[in-house]
């Protein structure tokens, strides 16, 4: 097949692939359509995902399913307080046979890395991970090594587990494109969880639904979704409102604004649209903005609630 027809085949099947992928994930992680859709959006928007919730609500399952379904290479790392940066990045070990120092890549050299309980690691280790996430490359002993072209970190953290945790500083929260909460399943989903076979066995049966090339095509297409001046007006109004809003100490940074736009584009693509509408911004706003906003000291609301309030206050003109 020549390149053109190959591209045509790829593009014709890409939507199918995407929808098949979403279907499969929804079969395994039940009752979490919107979370799954947002997670997929995050992947297509080439950003990293932070899942924050109590243990046992399916964070790991979601991460794992996402990786398997998109056909990406998957590594899981359980963060602990005695972890060192080298445990993530990899180490250079002297090889006696070849009389050279060989680099043994750490788990970060994978396409999808699940960083479980990321807030249990020391700040030093956290920052090694987060630097790698931002730069998409790792510098070990003076040598810079690029990470795979598709590099997606899903980190989870337990908000309630305060003892022995090192909360991520605000500046590093910013590295995550989205922060999602899983939440408990609803009654129907809960029933299915109880009735159906174990998730692990379902996961074992899961098949990759798209290729690397297809994922990259999706990412490429998402970046081309049209944002009209009217839509950018609305986005700017949202950003400005976050800075003026009395319940917020620190509003959205320019990077935050860009993040919203990037996610909204991916969201529109999931909706098979080539242009953004205000609803796209609204759909991703809370997930993208909440962890970047610091509610003012007197404000008892959670950042997610503040972000939703903000959304309700800015009129669409």
């Amino acid at each position, binding site marked *: 097949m020549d390149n053109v027809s190959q591209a045509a085949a790829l593009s014709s099947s890409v939507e199918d692939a995407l929808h098949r992928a979403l279907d499969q994930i929804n079969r395994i992680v039940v009752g979490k359509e919107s979370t799954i859709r947002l997670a997929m959006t995050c992947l297509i928007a080439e950003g990293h995902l932070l899942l924050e919730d109590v243990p046992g609500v399916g964070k790991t399952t979601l991460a794992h399913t996402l990786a398997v379904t998109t056909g990406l290479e998957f590594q899981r790392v359980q963060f602990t307080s005695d972890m060192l940066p080298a445990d993530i990045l990899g180490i250079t070990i002297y090889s006696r046979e070849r009389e050279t120092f060989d680099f043994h890549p750490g788990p970060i050299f994978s396409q999808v890395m699940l960083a479980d309980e990321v807030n249990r690691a020391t700040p030093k280790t956290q920052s090694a991970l987060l630097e790698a996430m931002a730069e998409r490359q790792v510098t070990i002993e003076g040598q810079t090594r690029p990470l795979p072209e598709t590099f997606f970190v899903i980190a989870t953290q337990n908000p309630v587990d305060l003892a022995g945790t090192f909360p991520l500083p605000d500046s590093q929260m910013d590295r995550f494109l989205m922060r999602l909460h899983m939440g408990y399943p609803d009654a129907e989903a809960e029933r299915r969880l109880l009735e159906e076979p174990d998730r692990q066995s379902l996961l074992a049966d899961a098949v990759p639904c798209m290729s690397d090339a297809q994922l990259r095509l999706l990412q490429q297409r998402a970046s081309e979704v049209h944002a009209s001046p009217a839509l950018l007006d609305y986005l700017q109004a949202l950003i400005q409102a976050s800075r003026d809003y009395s319940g917020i100490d620190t509003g959205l940074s320019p990077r935050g604004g860009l993040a919203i736009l990037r996610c909204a584009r991916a969201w529109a693509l999931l909706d098979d649209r080539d242009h953004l509408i205000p609803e796209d911004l609204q759909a991703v706003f809370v997930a993208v903005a909440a962890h970047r906003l610091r509610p003012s000291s007197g404000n008892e609301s959670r950042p997610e609630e503040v972000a939703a309030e903000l959304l*309700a206050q800015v009129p669409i003109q």
Partner: protein
Amino acid sequence: MSASFGRISALKQSPDLTTVLWLLASLTLAVAPHLTRLPLWLPLVFVAAAAERLSHFFFRRPALPGWLRFGLTLACLAGVAGSYGTILGRQAGIALLCVMLALKLLETYRRRDVYLLISLAYFVVVTQFLFNQSIYMSVFLLVTVVIITATLIVTELQPSRERHATHELSGLISPAGTLRNAGWMLLQGIPLMIGMFLLFPRLGVPLWGMPEDALYGKTGISDRMEPGSIRDLFVDDSPAFRVVFQGEPPDQSQLYWRGPVLWHFDGAAWCREAPCDRSDRDSPGMIGAQNRRRPPALENPIRYEVTMEASQQHWIFALDIPLRVPAGWRFALERDYTIHRRRPVTQTTVYTLTSDPGFKMNTRQDGWLRNLGLQLPPDLNPRTREFARQLRETHGDDDLAIVQAVLSRFRNEEYFYSFTPPPLGINTVDDFLFETREGYCEFYSSSFTFLMRAAGIPARVVTGYQGGLDMVDYTLIRQSDAHAWAEVWLDGKGWTRVDPTAAVAPERIDRGALAAAGGRRGPLDFEWIRGLRNQFDAVHRLWSDWVVKFNRARQRSLFRPLGVDDLSARFSLITLIVLGGAFVAVVMLLLLRAQWIGGLDPASREYARFCRKLQRSGITRGAAEGPRDFASRAAASREGLAAPIHRITDLYVALRFQPRQPDHALDELKSAVRAFKA
């Protein structure tokens, strides 16, 4: 800071030709109604000043030197003082204001001066109401105010006119556009104006002591009748008074409205009492008021309410024969049944009277009145005296026969009813009775009375109005209904009305003076114009009732149904402030909304219209609700409208958010929104 400096320097700018032309138009219109009251030289000063101001645009000339302007000012001051004998008072004050307006034109170097003149022009407009409060004048002044406001806009826009190319502002600075803007601005002020008018605390008496002639009014009939005085009234269709009868109005031929009775004839003029050159009096004269201790019993009373226009006279008019006048000292029913008002009628006055057409006046002869009724100027009109002597010889003591003989002479011989009689010599009665034989009521009543007196029958001239136009709920009596007739004293009957004009031209009494004169009174006197005028009188009455005469009492009666009994100044002011505040708030909101809507792009404006339509049917779009979300929600609650709702939303989203808009999408959106019915 720089903006305010810029504004001040813009005020120092000299006005351009457009501004000055508008200014001249405004000033001319503002001053024009005063012209009849101003000395003749004053308009000339005004025109000269306007010409001088305009000449700056065509010839490069330095402005007039300061000493010359000062000298001119002094000269004009002296001129006003010379014309009026004072520079104070209403008339002289207005003249002074106008002349200063003209002189200010000479030194209108800067736009600031233009603003000053515009403010003065507004003030001059207000001063018109010191003289004339008619509806015509008000309409004229309203137009003037529109033009003055337009001038204000033109002046204000001068800097923008200079900065921008004309075409950019053409919609704003074209005369029509400016007038439209000014009109629109004033229109917005109308609710405030009405509120102020209704609520502003009214004083029982005018705030400023208005001279008696301040309120408009035609002189109408006075207590003096000389050749031509009634004829001047025939061409005047303005209302004299209006009457509302309690019960059925009497027959047209019975509508004799009694005014002053004239006793004294000096050969040319009839007047109430000798001497005739005393034209006006403030108190009942020699005739004197009736003894009112014993009011006569009424057989056939007619009660009615008269609303009389200002006449500046002491006489008020009543249906023949008035017997009851309002109690109190203000009205006096005199012995010849003339009603005298202590103060002249300087503004529209309402009074209730009772008359009895069948009443017999003074059946017992009063010697003194009898002598008054026989007075004749010595030596004049020998032929008439001779004719009277012959009549007396023919009929002996029968006074009634003499009266009838004279009437039948008028009826059967060649006498004509005409508004354009030939001139009479010094023996007016002789000339009329035996030579010209042409005239109107004045001539007939005058000569008839003279003839009766010459024959020894006490007689007098009664002036007033005859007839009236039935306006369904009231009867309108116009100046043109003015009439004069005679009364003779007959034994056993007392003073009896005799209308010699009726003998000559019965149609005068049946159908009015106009019919008797045979058609038109002037080149523009067409039937339809008269009809229009009479219809317009109803409008006029509303105007006078609700605007000119809107006094404290009427204000109270207006607010009483609303439960406001005590219309104190404090209540008025508080209500005014509250209503004014509410009005300003509403205007601000409307402006903000207009700005919001106006700031939107066309697609959003159409979409906003669509949302308003849905809102009226109870589906309100949240401010932060996206169009697709709203469309799904609206379509879900109004399933029948799902298709148009989605179509409009598709078009709107395409126009606002898609990279390439479909052709004619905006037109389609417009027509779809217009056709949309929620």
